[in-house]
């Protein structure tokens, strides 16, 4: 396993127990249990309205849970006002004080805490260096670019050495290049500081890149929580499978077992095999998932542990480093395949190809609970 895990150890710094948040008749958070581990970088990932931001706001103290408890370092904090929680917050729109210079913005949390003046000067200087804004101290936020403003916001959230830093889609407003640059910086910063960070985003690639663990939110609940590779390789629900990475999702039914595998038959009549799981029962309706990159265009003899289907090319999309090939697989349905550019270019709509995949790359997911 190639995990991003940094200094995280197993002791939780924050525990959420049966936390719910109800607005009138709308349930934003149903009943949430979550442990945030000391030193980890955990991301709340989900579409808008999934409850990820609400959870973050309850952590930071801007919203009170309707019921349930939040503990930090063993202390109940769910009724503690935000200014007494000692949690650093980075906001989506930076929330820098426009009437203060960068230096004054950074001094603010230290002044409030009664830190001595020369100590403030020293720490502000160090923080400015840390986020590569050494020369910008006397500017006002308005005179900085978006990326620079977000760096100041980050520095302001870490300068008072909080035990927990929460970040609410902090890179959402930035363009792609800058975003990737700041992601790298943020990751390095987390490695240097070792502070627990909770990051909210709707961007799955950002979540995979940054996090030790990702909690996937949907409809006010956590669908799955795990390392990026766990989520990618072994999604627990169709929602997670479709939200993280690209996936071919095919409806089928378990019709039998062979060794440790299940055989799934599709509406078109064809069958494919995938590793069995605890819950798998014959006649269960399942979603059969295949990652596009696990499909190959077969050119030689079948390998052991592989299965093949014959398919007709519907369309190819050129993406530079790769080609997307959209196929209609006989008796199965529509499949999307990533071919390297050389391989895919030769294909034209109407061509018939053999598609190969390992049995291990297939994943069956129950449709009983999570499909509406």
């Amino acid at each position: 396993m190639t995990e991003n895990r940094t200094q995280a150890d197993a002791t939780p710094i924050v525990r959420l127990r049966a936390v719910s948040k109800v607005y009138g008749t709308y349930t934003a958070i149903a009943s949430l249990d979550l442990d945030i581990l000391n030193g980890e970088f955990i991301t709340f990932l989900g579409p808008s309205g999934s409850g990820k931001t609400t959870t973050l706001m309850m952590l930071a103290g801007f919203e009170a849970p309707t019921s349930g408890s939040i503990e930090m370092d063993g202390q109940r904090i769910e009724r503690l006002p935000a200014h007494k929680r000692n949690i650093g917050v980075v906001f989506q729109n930076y929330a820098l004080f426009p009437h203060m210079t960068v230096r004054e913005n950074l001094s603010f949390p230290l002044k409030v805490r009664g830190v001595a003046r020369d100590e403030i000067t020293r720490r502000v200087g160090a923080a400015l260096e840390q986020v590569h804004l050494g020369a910008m101290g006397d500017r006002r936020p308005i005179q900085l670019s978006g990326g620079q403003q977000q760096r100041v916001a980050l520095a302001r959230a870490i300068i008072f050495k909080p035990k927990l830093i929460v970040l609410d889609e902090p890179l959402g407003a930035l363009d792609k290049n800058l975003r990737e640059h700041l992601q790298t910086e943020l990751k390095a910063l987390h490695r240097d500081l070792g502070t627990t960070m909770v990051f909210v985003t709707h961007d799955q690639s950002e979540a995979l890149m940054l996090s030790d663990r990702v909690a996937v939110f949907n409809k006010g609940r956590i669908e799955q929580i795990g390392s990026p590779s766990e989520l990618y390789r072994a999604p627990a629900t169709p929602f997670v499978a479709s939200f993280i990475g690209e996936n071919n999702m095919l409806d089928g039914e378990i019709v039998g077992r062979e060794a440790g595998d299940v055989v799934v038959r599709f509406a078109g009549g064809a069958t494919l095999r995938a590793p069995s799981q605890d819950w798998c029962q014959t006649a269960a309706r399942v979603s059969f998932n295949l990652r596009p990159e696990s499909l190959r265009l077969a050119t030689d003899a079948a390998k052991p542990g592989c299965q093949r289907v014959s398919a007709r090319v519907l369309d190819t999309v050129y993406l530079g480093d790769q080609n997307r090939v959209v196929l209609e697989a006989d008796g199965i349905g529509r499949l999307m395949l990533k071919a390297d550019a050389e391989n895919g270019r030769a294909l034209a709509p109407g061509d018939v190809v053999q598609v190969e995949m390992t049995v291990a790359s297939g994943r069956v997911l129950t449709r009983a609970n999570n499909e509406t």
Partner: protein
Amino acid sequence: MDSQYLWRLAIKICGALVLFFLIAPILAIIPLSFNSSSILSYPLEGFSTEWYAKLFVDDRWWNAIRNSLIVAAATVAIATPLGTFAAVGLSKVTFRGKPLVVAALMSPMIVPTIITAVGIYFMFSKLGLANSLTGLVLAHVALAVPFVVITVSASVAQLDPVLLRAASSLGAGAVTSFRVVTLPLILPGVISGAIFAFTTSFDEVVVAVLLTGPEQRTLPRELLSGTRENLDPSVMAIATLLVLFSTALLLVFNAIQNRSRKLRD
């Protein structure tokens, strides 16, 4: 020339006429204050600063100026914080009767002043506040608060509530947050409100007529009796000084507006 040019010319002329209409009566008094004749009419007879000189030795005017400044300053000192707190407080909450509370706060501005003034007169007479500067200040505060509420509310509406969350996340309690974040950012509105409060009090005449005896006469009150009883050009001299003073206030007000706009963009 094309028709577009003529249009523009017509618009400019109309604009100039409107401005002339607005400003001519004010400008007309200035030459009269320097007229050597004691009769208030054109054409002028000759240049004289006699009326200004007379003004400076007349206790009646000095007393009125002093009263006006005391009352206006006290009105500003009371109405500005009251209106500011009201505006900030109202921005933070929503409750059932909020429109009623807002209407009550605004009523002195909407109800004809004479109605408010008569009401205040009857009430203050019972309370022993008639014929006192304290009473006049309290009445002016009631008239001035709506202006402060309006200007401060406009500033508060521009204030990003996330900034207050940020302040709180950084460890600032409600009082610190108000002092260090809210107040500096709404200051242009507060200062505008203070200027409005000052002018509301400084040129208020209706309440002053009802509520002041000879001892508490304010400048507008004295000007009113000056024009009615003994119309001499010293009234014009004091009016000219007032015009200069108002112009200065207006310039300050504009400067503040420009400054706050610069901060925001």
